[in-house]
């Protein structure tokens, strides 16, 4: 080692205090860019007559795709089916998830074990769950068809009939996603303060009154959060429906994502597909805004009461 080495200490890379915030926020900024660029591109495409199979006809049509959609009865069917599917799945999963969470609320070994076991469907890819249900509802050898025949419905058509197709895919969705709601609400229930419940027990308040007036209001923020997550997911449903019926029979299950997928990959109609996605984004935005506004209002009220 020479004297020079000792004299020159190792220079450390230093980040200026001004640059640090930018550097720390860079990953988040990059993610935002990666979202905003496709979003902007989708808006741009949605304003074009753009079909890959007709490159010569590509031109800006400034909203004609939207106009065509709004005047097409099939589009309104898609809106109706998507919203019905989302409302049914979220509503039913909420009721069932809450019921199961209430049953498992008490911390016992059995309840803990069951709550973990009930998460199994969440580990199954929805498309695989749909294929599994497709086999179970097969009229020749499906176990559910057999059970239906025992119950006096020998000709129950499940997903292949327009009368029962929605019910069938909703059942699959419930099977896959109810555990998600259950686990969120269970966590909420177990984190509620015990004093109000103890006070109600001392006063001999009926259990139904406790549920409606204490449990449910205190659990509402959790219910709203779980509903929001599920709603966002459910309104974008693709895999279960596509794997089971490809949107049929007829247009019974032609939800947004299936319609957009078919428009892009099968028809190569980029403009229409992008317009559908932008409309779905707008619907999702409005619904989430409503949820978040209510969630904030509840929080404010809780603070005010405190």
């Amino acid at each position, binding site marked *: 080692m020479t004297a020079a080495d000792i004299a020159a200490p190792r220079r450390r890379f230093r980040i200026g205090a001004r640059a640090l915030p930018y550097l720390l926020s860079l990953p988040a900024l990059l993610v935002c860019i990666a979202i905003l660029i496709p979003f902007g591109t989708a808006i741009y495409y949605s304003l074009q007559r753009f*079909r*890959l*199979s*007709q*490159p*010569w*006809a590509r031109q800006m049509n400034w909203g004609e795709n939207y106009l*065509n959609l709004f005047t*097409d009865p*099939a589009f309104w069917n898609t809106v109706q089916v998507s919203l019905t599917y989302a409302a049914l799945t979220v509503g039913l999963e909420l009721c069932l998830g809450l019921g199961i969470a209430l049953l498992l609320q008490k911390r016992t070994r059995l309840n803990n074990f069951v709550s973990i076991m009930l998460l199994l469907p969440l580990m199954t890819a929805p498309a695989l769950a749909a294929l599994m249900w*497709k086999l179970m*509802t*097969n*009229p*020749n050898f499906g176990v559910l068809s057999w059970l239906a025949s025992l119950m006096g419905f020998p*000709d129950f*058509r*499940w*997903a*292949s*009939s*327009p*009368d029962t197709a929605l019910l069938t895919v909703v059942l699959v969705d419930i099977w896959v996603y109810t555990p998600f709601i259950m686990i969120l609400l269970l966590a909420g229930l177990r984190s509620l303060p015990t004093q109000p419940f103890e006070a109600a027990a001392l006063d001999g308040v009926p259990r139904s009154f406790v549920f409606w007036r204490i449990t449910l209001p205190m659990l509402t923020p959790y219910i709203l959060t779980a509903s929001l997550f599920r709603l966002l997911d459910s309104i974008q449903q693709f895999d279960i429906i596509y794997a*089971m*019926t*490809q*949107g*049929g*029979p*007829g*247009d019974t299950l032609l939800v947004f994502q299936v319609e957009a997928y*078919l428009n892009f*990959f*099968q*028809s*190569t*109609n980029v403009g229409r597909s992008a317009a559908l996605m932008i409309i779905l984004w707008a619907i999702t935005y409005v619904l989430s805004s409503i949820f978040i506004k209510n969630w904030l209002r509840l929080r404010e009220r809780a603070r005010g009461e405190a």
Partner: protein
Amino acid sequence: MLEKERDLVGAFMRGQLSRRDLVRGLGALGVSAASANALIGMATSRALAADFDWKKHAGTGVKLLLNKHPYADAMIANLESFKALTGMEVTYDVFPEDVYFDKVTAALASGSSEYDAFMTGAYMTWTYGPAGWITDLNEWINDPAKTAPNYAWEDMLPGLRASTAWNGVPGGALGSADAKQWCLPWGYEMNNLTYNRDMLAKAGVAVPTNMGELTEAAAKLTKDIDGAYGVGVRGSRSWATIHPGFLSAYANFGQKDLNVSADGKLSAAMNTSESKAFHAQWVKMIQESGPKDWSTYTWYQVGTDLGAGASAMIFDADILGYFMNGGDNAMAGKLGYAPFAANPAAAAPTPNVWIWSLAMATASQKKDAAWYFLQWATGAEHGLFGASKMDFVNPVRQSVWSDEGFRARLENSYPGYVNQHDVSAPGAKIYFTAQPLFFDLTTEWAASLQQMVAGQVPVDEGLDKLAASVDRQLKEAGLG
């Protein structure tokens, strides 16, 4: 090679001896079947190489995008002979059919040069061609410097050559003089009847020869055969429901999907009174004698039901019946085949065809080398190898269909198959109007059919609605 063996192989190469006779002759000389095949392979490679520089692209590699299919399996099994012939390297990716065309669309739309050639259906080229993703192969077919003299393009069945060529004009006739050859036919399917011989005999039902008889026979079979329904046809909400049996029968009544006006404008043609009558009969047949969950049926369910004995007949791809008659299917060896002209007044069947074809990507950087692969893979030699040794049916070349060994093999194991082919092949072609909205309109057609079968809408009203929607879409796209 000994002199006698050489003479035999020489006679085979000159066309004086069938492949079967050659193998038999070599066997008599003590040559094992495997060695005989190797000898034939070597000899044919030499013959192929005789007047053409197959080694021109030696050392070059081409990459293929393939669908998981017996045609691809047959090609892969014979790939070593191509490599030996050309000194080229071939790599490939194989995807299951469920995702295959999404992969193709993504690869082509991105302009990627990863894949030089790929499997496609003729209908898909109505999108890929005008989009500029694939190349007009006439440039190579007509260039003697790039195409071996014995390639024999004219040997391809004429209906298939025409069906894979389109001028790109919406409504333009397939195979017209100005048509571009977007792909090369590789293997194809006609839509005819495959039936369970035991079930028909048990029910005392004769093989139906027209739509009325088919409807009656299917109803009787549904009633008389325990655990089986009468006739399997596709029903999923997809264009693939329309193109097989349905369109073959529809075309047999002289009906078409679209009208093309003198000024080239397109309009819906599926709500004529004849079309309505046909649809009503088709819907009745499914309601009375189709599978219970018909609206979810793809080719897979149609085929496996027949193979498992859950259906007595199918009106679908003949090769589906072919495959269900072998392997470990419960009904293997019990199936029969028949040509089917739905219209009692029609002179012959009019099977609409599905043609697995090979196309070349415009973005390929090795087009000439890729062409060497394409001409080998669609050549008569590989066609005969695949048809004789593998399950490369239906071959697209007349010379393969004329091969005695191949015909005998089919006759022995697939009764009626050769006859159904020979009777139907002259009328086999694509009966759709070539235009870029093909998938949109046929998928909607399938959805309408589902509504009619489910009783959601009467046939007449359903077809009128469908026609109005088709016209609206054509107008929106600037085609109507």
